[in-house]
């Protein structure tokens, strides 16, 4: 029962965050210029044409009326029509979201595959040359500008060696470079965290007990050390999601990956306000959801945790 109450409270909190966000997004976009002026750029329209278009799009109404109308539709799953593509925004979002999700998940999996073994090794051999190498590598990883890493990977693997395609989405091969760009940088941050959490667990009594009773080292590592270090690793991966989404936008642009970030950037360039608004809100909802799932995953990992 407590869990249900907790989840309900978290969803309400998430809704509050979304409400504030929607206002901020709405006001920012409206404050920074008249969308109609942007739409008709270079067409030298008459005053009547502008007024007509404004009326047709409902932009001649007071801001709070526009906002209320938008939100009234938004909560029913209607985010309006895209100005530039004349398609419902939700249709566009759902058609592009799978590609973005695929890229983000691939990056997370890749980063975990790199970070967990290396971080664990570094922690278990603290102070060794390997440990210093891992620490150095992770620091280099977090210092990489993601767009530069992407370009360098293209330079080496597409331009020089022609192994992987430089752009587009044509099967698994084209996923490799964008996912690796994001994954390597994420791994840099994660390695430090894995190392730190394993270091905290290793001196615990239960690890000593397990070793003393003669458990094989591999078993001590998996069931005692890693299982307990997992909690902070999961929390952290959840927290990284916001940063990951930011990276996805830029990486999708570099690799012409047909995801949400790419149409987001195009929408920004074309001043397609309903689409920009829809995508920003969708990303925010995604973050709220991921944060909630992260918290709930604690229950599975550590049964001692109880929510109040």
């Amino acid at each position, binding site marked *: 029962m407590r869990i249900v109450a907790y989840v309900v409270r978290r969803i309400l*909190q*998430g809704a*509050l*965050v979304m409400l*504030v*966000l929607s206002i*901020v*997004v709405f006001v*920012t*976009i409206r404050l*920074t*210029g008249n969308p109609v002026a*942007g739409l008709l750029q270079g067409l030298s329209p008459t005053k009547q044409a502008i007024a007509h278009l404004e009326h047709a799009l409902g932009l001649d109404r007071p801001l709070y009326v526009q906002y209320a109308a938008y939100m009234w539709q938004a909560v029913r799953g209607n985010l309006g029509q895209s100005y530039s593509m004349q398609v419902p925004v939700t249709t566009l979002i759902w058609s592009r979201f799978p590609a973005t999700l695929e890229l983000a998940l691939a990056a997370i999996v890749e980063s975990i595959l790199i970070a967990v073994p290396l971080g664990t090794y570094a922690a278990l051999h*603290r*102070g*060794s040359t390997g440990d*210093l190498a891992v*620490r150095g590598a992770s*620091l*280099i990883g*977090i*210092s*990489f*500008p*993601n*767009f*530069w890493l992407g*370009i*360098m990977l*293209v*330079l080496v693997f597409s*331009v020089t060696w022609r192994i992987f395609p430089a752009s587009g989405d044509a099967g698994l091969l084209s996923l490799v470079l964008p996912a690796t760009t994001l994954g390597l940088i994420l791994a840099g941050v994660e390695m430090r965290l894995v190392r*730190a959490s394993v*270091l*905290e667990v*290793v*001196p*615990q*009594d239960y690890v*000593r007990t397990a070793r003393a009773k003669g458990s094989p080292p591999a078993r001590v590592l998996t069931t005692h050390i890693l299982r307990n270090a997992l909690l902070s690793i999961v929390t952290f991966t959840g927290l990284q999601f*916001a940063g990951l*989404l*930011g990276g996805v*936008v*830029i990486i999708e*642009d*570099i690799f012409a990956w047909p995801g949400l*970030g790419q149409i*987001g*950037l195009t929408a*920004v*360039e074309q*001043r397609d306000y309903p689409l*920009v608004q829809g*995508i*920003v809100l969708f990303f*925010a909802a995604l*973050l*709220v959801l991921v*944060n909630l799932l992260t918290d709930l995953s604690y229950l599975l990992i550590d049964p001692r945790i109880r929510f109040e």
Partner: protein
Amino acid sequence: MAQPAVSPAPAAPAAPNRTHRLRRWLSASVLIGGVVVAVVVVIAALSGLLAPNPNALSLGATLAPPFFQAGAAAGAPLGTDYLGRNVLSLIIAGTPISLEIGLLATTCAATLGTALGLLSGYAGGWVDDVVMRLVDVQLAFPFILMALTFMAVSGPGLAKLIVILILSGWVTYARVVRGETLRLRELLFVESARAVGAPRRRILARHILPNVLPSVLVLAPIDVANNILLSAALTFIGLGIDPSIPSWGGLLANGRIYLNTSWWIATFPGLAIMVTVFGFNLLGDGLRDALDPRSRT
């Protein structure tokens, strides 16, 4: 949290020479990070002398490769771009603006975040609630997209870029300072200050602020690194610094077009960003381990 330095029988007896090596590595990281940062600062300060005329065109030597490849142009060790501009000069000319953005945005974000964190932690009640809800909203914010929207609609510009970096950066400071303040306000010396009737402003300024400052200072170099990265990323997609001002992100964006034929134009500015950011990160990392014994390595 285990503290082998204090407890006589440490649970994890790390070999003494290993701990020693680790400590040496950390002081080395402060040293190396400090040297890298110092070099970048000197280059930025002397950029007017080192690269007096970065936009000088040399149409006879366009797209010349760097010095170690055949066909390199004299005086352009890192090659030239499509207008024959010297890539090394452009990188040097782009140094001050990167540093200015990084330092200015960090200083403002740290000041704002520290003030809000102190207030939130010490006052508690509704002030705390409001600040913490702001933090929540900020953390659930698809920030890059929002920054993109804002910059795209209002056009690129230095001041706007810095404001955006401040808005994204203050949260970390506010959370850390609030946590520290919550801890400090219950300690005896703060209580005695309260008991003798010191006003709240004085307690915050004289007793709490000096004690939270080390945590703030430790966060700052890493924040500078992040701000340099974020501003370069926004400039790279054409929404940060005005393209007419030489900047690392802008150079990289130009170089990307010539990637198939002239790899050096995109490669070296990126390297400049990476080395600078690495220097700040290394410095921050070493400082944190030296100043904050709780984040043991």
